[in-house]
């Protein structure tokens, strides 16, 4: 992502510019070449020029004060374009900043490492440095959209089977089909959730359905199958579920995503696990939460897999960590696999649930960094 420059009006603080105003310095400033030198004290921040040409800009920061200092280059909204920290008294440190677009930025010295710092505007001139279109990113999106489309098809197939069993009054078979039918849904949940009312109609839980909305969808049928027994309107509810799922399929196959949505989707799926599945809230009648858990994780992995080439190129260490932590999570989840699927949530001890939660936290923390890598 390119950093937009700050509007000049936002530059509110001060800069103690160089005291030397000789002609040679002005020449340097005009040409915008060579490193920009910064002298930082506990109370001042002096730079030898405040303009540079777009591209790679080098700063050399010398701390002549008595406090640990930091130097920042900020874009809009105080987004950090570049920074160098832990400049201890007496130390000089150099660093490079990539600034792609001309405009007004801000520089800041931060004696004592806190507060807004001592600031000044910083002008970048010249032409925007071009960025090659990212083919890997486009490929990631295409690949993930294909995944969403395939899962939508699968959702339709499985829901059709489940609905037929409910309508035939085959409770035992319908119960077995319930967690299986939900699988593809759970894999693409963040995408499906973006289609307005379809999400609550298909997957709403009784206590989160909005006022005035009927309790329908998977969880209504779950309640019928496990708790109250099939009701007179169970068949109608099943029919409606199928209609709604068909609509999801149409929308899912046409969805246009961007790379950030992939990254946020990967995170969103793990959030689903952390707040809904790890607590046993999602499938409160059937207690088949671990099925959904597993599918959410698979969906999150699919988004990461689509982004894999991008992540590998930009932050291989993060990708390695994510892979390792997904592995740990899988190992933990594997402990509860049975011949037909998973143990019920209610069969797990508190310690076992905590171990799962620890593994989810670990991978979630890393996945939360993916959006930033994609956006950079």
């Amino acid at each position, binding site marked *: *992502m390119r*950093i937009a420059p700050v509007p*000049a009006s936002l*530059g*509110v*603080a*001060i*800069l*103690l*510019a*160089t*005291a030397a*105003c000789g002609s040679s310095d002005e020449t340097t400033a005009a040409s915008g070449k060579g490193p920009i030198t910064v002298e930082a*004290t*506990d*109370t*001042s921040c*002096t730079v030898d020029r*405040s303009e540079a040409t777009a591209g790679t800009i080098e700063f050399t920061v010398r701390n002549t004060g008595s*406090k*640990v200092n930091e130097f*920042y280059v*900020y874009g809009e*909204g*105080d*987004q*950090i374009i570049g*920074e160098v*920290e*832990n400049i201890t008294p007496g130390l000089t440190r150099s660093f490079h900043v990539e600034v792609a677009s001309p405009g*007004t930025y801000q520089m800041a010295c931060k*004696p*004592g*490492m*806190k*507060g*807004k*710092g*001592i*600031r*000044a*505007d910083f*002008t970048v001139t010249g032409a925007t440095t071009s960025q090659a279109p990212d083919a890997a990113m486009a490929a990631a999106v295409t690949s993930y959209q294909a995944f969403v489309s395939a899962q939508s098809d699968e959702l339709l197939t499985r829901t059709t089977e489940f609905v037929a069993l409910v309508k035939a009054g085959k409770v035992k078979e319908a119960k077995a089909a319930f967690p299986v039918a939900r699988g593809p849904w759970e894999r693409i949940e963040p995408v499906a959730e973006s289609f307005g009312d379809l999400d609550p109609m298909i997957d709403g839980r009784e206590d989160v359905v909005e006022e005035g909305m009927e309790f329908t969808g998977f969880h209504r049928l779950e309640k019928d199958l496990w708790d109250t027994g099939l009701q007179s309107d169970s068949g109608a509810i099943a029919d409606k579920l199928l209609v709604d799922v068909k609509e999801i399929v149409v929308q899912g196959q046409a969805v246009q995503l961007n790379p*950030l949505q992939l990254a946020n989707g990967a995170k969103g799926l793990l959030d689903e696990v952390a707040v809904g599945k790890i607590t046993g809230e999602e499938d409160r009648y059937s207690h088949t939460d671990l099925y959904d858990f597993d599918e959410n994780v698979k969906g999150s992995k699919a988004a990461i897999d689509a982004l894999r080439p991008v992540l590998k190129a930009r932050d291989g260490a993060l990708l390695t*960590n994510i892979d390792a*932590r997904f592995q740990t999570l899988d190992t933990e989840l594997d402990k509860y696999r049975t011949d037909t699927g998973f143990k019920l949530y209610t069969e797990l001890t508190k310690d076992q649930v*905590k171990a799962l939660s*620890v593994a989810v*936290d*670990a*991978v*979630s*923390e*890393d996945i*939360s*960094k993916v*959006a*930033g890598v*994609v*956006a950079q």
Partner: protein
Amino acid sequence: MTDLSRRRLLGVGAGAAVVGAVAGVGGAYAAQQGSEGSDGSATVGQADEADVPFRGAHQSGIITPAQDRMHFVALDVVTEDRAAVAEMLKAWTRAAERMTVGAEAAPGGVVGGGPYRAPEDTGEAYDLDASDLTITIGYGPSLFDDRFGLADRRPAALQDLPGFVGDDLDPGRSGGDLCIQACANDPQVAVHAVRNLVRMGFGVVSVRWSQLGFGRTSSTTRDQVTPRNMFGFKDGTNNLKAEDTAALSEHVWVQPADVPGDSAWMAGGSYLVARRIRMHIEIWDRTTLQEQQDIIGRDKGEGAPLGQKAEFDALDFATKGADGKPAIAVDAHVALAHESRLNGIRILRRGYNFTDGSDGLGHLDAGLFFIGFMRDAQKQFVPMQRALAAKDGLNEYIEHTGSAVFACPPGLGPDAHWGQDLFS
């Protein structure tokens, strides 16, 4: 200042720099201007003077004047990757040092990452100063099992505490591979510190238990007023104080001779004993003043030892009361815990009052989160607690519900980081 042009700003600044260099007043000018623009640097300089130094011979948070608030966490290591633990401790050092001066956990941590990143700092302490924040870490005995190849480096004194009479320990509130003690005068600052360190540790450590403390129950320097515990009594009058340097060497700091060979990394450190002591507040409140005072061995108003007048009067076990019996009963709390009855044993107490809501039976789940620092928990806390557990009249009103011991390594020199010596 937005109506001024950039050139104008620079011009003003340049002038100030010259004046500053010559007359030494430019700094004040700069700071003042900064304050007008935003929060500026004027407050930065003032706050710095008050911050507790992060580095030094010993970790801060031990003899540092006890702050009013505490957030303590015990953590379990959840990875088998030794390098990941060492790396986390190094990352913690950087963040902790930053937070103890009131800085964000990472540069630009709150908003500097831009709109598409999860902020690196959680932000709730963004506008707060450091509030005397100290962050102290410790290693539990279990860290030295066979997982990380540290067995040979375990100091002999670092052992789980034995059971004591009357203990009702909850495993979920006891033990841990690591601990973080964050103390500050603003609770939000302490909680922020722990929250951010815990977050950095996901995948490496997991919180095993945690405790919030809302009021210090000990003074660790002579100029602090002695606070009161939840029983309403002054607590820690006879505590070791930061000024007692010789006594600290004898009773608090691990000496090189204590930790020969592979455990030498612990020299200059201290053992932290944590005990969650639930107080049966409501029962205590129904107890007569005389009985309360007899149990403690001090008067409630002044805090003086029974038979004496002022808080800091020495305890005299020979003084008789009106009834001809010793004014301080032989099994009074202050008598049992007194060095003269414990072969000279002393510890540095640094505990906090806590109230964790209520217990579902209409009673406060409140008490004292005891923290004691000492040179050898086995030789100091264990005999002291054995004596108290056996005879203390307070036992009718208290119950120990959590227990842990940690080896807090020595302080950090310039450029050093936590775990460096232990994991080297």
